[in-house]
């Protein structure tokens, strides 16, 4: 097994190679505005570090979010296209699950929250690092304060809002190494991982920019 994992659903552009036993190379850069630029060079670097070529990969693992859309799509589109070109399966893993795994918490419950911008967080609760209790959701921190009261929390969304998450701690952003390890574990256990579908959680803003192509109802 050789998995190439990538995640662009948080400010981190993160890539890792996992051989089924261990992470053999990884790269993480935090720059929320340059996902499109940074991802391919990171893949290239990680492969070079491992002394491997992309065609040695037996599967792609990609974080499906939730996350800010523009960045999220960079990872998903890259993973989909690698899958097409290489003829290997592409596995989707919830980005929050990767963060929960990276948090390495034996006993929960705890919360994973990432920054959804617009003063909201993407979040879910976990029983332990491998077990999610709730569906990922997007909310204002104040609106979920009661539900997460007293729980430890990880992720940039928790660190940003100490009023709601007073005991927030690292890890802050997604890690492809954790995503790969989690996927490897699940695949080794014979689990089927879902096809990569973006988790947007919000409807698109229906704003038409000025001076752009006009489309009126038929």
């Amino acid at each position, binding site marked *: 097994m050789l998995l190439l994992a990538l995640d662009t659903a948080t400010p981190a552009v993160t890539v890792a190679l996992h051989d089924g036993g261990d992470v053999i190379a990884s790269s993480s850069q935090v720059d929320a505005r340059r996902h499109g*630029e940074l991802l*391919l060079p990171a893949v*290239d670097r990680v*492969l070079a570090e491992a002394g491997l070529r992309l065609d040695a990969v037996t599967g792609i693992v990609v974080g499906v979010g939730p996350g800010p859309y*523009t960045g999220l799509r960079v990872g998903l589109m890259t993973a989909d296209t690698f899958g*097409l*070109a290489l003829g290997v399966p592409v596995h989707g893993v919830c980005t929050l699950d990767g963060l929960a795994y990276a948090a390495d918490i034996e006993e929960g419950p705890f919360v994973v929250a990432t920054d959804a911008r617009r003063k909201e967080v993407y979040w879910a609760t976990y029983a332990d690092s491998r077990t999610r209790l709730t569906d990922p959701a997007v909310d204002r921190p104040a609106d979920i304060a009661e539900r997460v009261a007293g729980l430890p929390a990880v992720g940039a969304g928790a660190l940003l809002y100490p009023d709601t998450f007073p005991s927030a701690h690292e890890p802050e952003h997604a890690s492809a190494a954790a995503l790969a390890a989690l996927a490897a574990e699940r695949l080794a256990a014979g689990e089927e991982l879902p096809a990569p579908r973006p988790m947007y959680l919000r409807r698109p803003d229906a704003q038409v*920019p000025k001076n752009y*192509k006009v489309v009126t109802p038929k």
Partner: protein
Amino acid sequence: MADEPLVLGIETSCDETGVGIVRGTTLLADAIASSVDEHARFGGVVPEVASRAHLEAMVPTIDRALKEAGVSARDLDGIAVTAGPGLAGALLVGVSAAKAYAYALGKPLYGVNHLASHICVDQLEHGALPEPTMALLVSGGHSSLLLSSDITSDVRPMGATIDDAAGEAFDKIARVLNLGFPGGPVIDRYAKEGDPRAIAFPRGLTGPRDAAYDFSFSGLKTAVARWIEARRAAGEDVPVRDVAASFQEAVVDVLTRKAVRACRDEGVDHLMIGGGVAANSRLRVLAQERCEAAGIRLRVPRPKLCTDNGAMVAALGAEMVARNRVPSSWDLSADSSLPVTDPHVPGHDHVHEVGKENLYS
């Protein structure tokens, strides 16, 4: 010819997911998935809706193009993609796909300019572009007059619209006349039965002191709308056919007059017209008449190649390969305002050489 470059092109600058495949100047496939229906209820292209649709459509559209062309991805000589200008988020989906595809297949990547691609597509219809070529690009998104001596390296803006795009004016007047969407074809149809000289609508920016090659359609649009409203206010019937014909005549008169003048001034004996509005029948007829009178050869591709598509991107990519232009780097990014003067985005270092370590041999 088998030794001409085989290139796959990806276009996602607006609401069409286009994947085309060409061999040199020969069109092999032109696969399109459009999200236009999803935007209709919003009255215009919603960027986030377009971006989501591109992500969904990309892999199936690449597959379709390969099948249509009957070629294997391994045989491609390069991957081209629209790097700009266009909607930032939409462009980024195409750029991400193209980079991943080129990297995985071990092929050079060419990030190219959308406007230069609109010009280059004519090679698929009429063979190699004459050098220099004057190009009039008219659509719902752009109206420009461009002069190119080499489509891979030199595109010069002669003029552009200072307000609305020509296609936008057609859509808006069709709406005022309650003719539905899209405006271009329906105005064209009504105009055929109308008198283009019935109403004297203004010709924007045609005064002696106005910019010789710039366009303006906003004043015309307002004049037509006012004329219609005045008729309605007076309780009179609106002569839809005459209004359509007179409005259309005002648009194509200015477009062709300025394009021919630019050719004459620059000593260029070829004019190509591209973009969705190039499908307008009166524009084609008038351009033909005026070009003939001025001794200029007119080249207009078939309508499907005039609107946004992947084949035009592949056509420019093939030209980049044929002329040994420097491929783009793996850190190529989408540039929503890529200047028209940059036909492609060459790599800044030797990233491709480093990258080859990891590619198929």
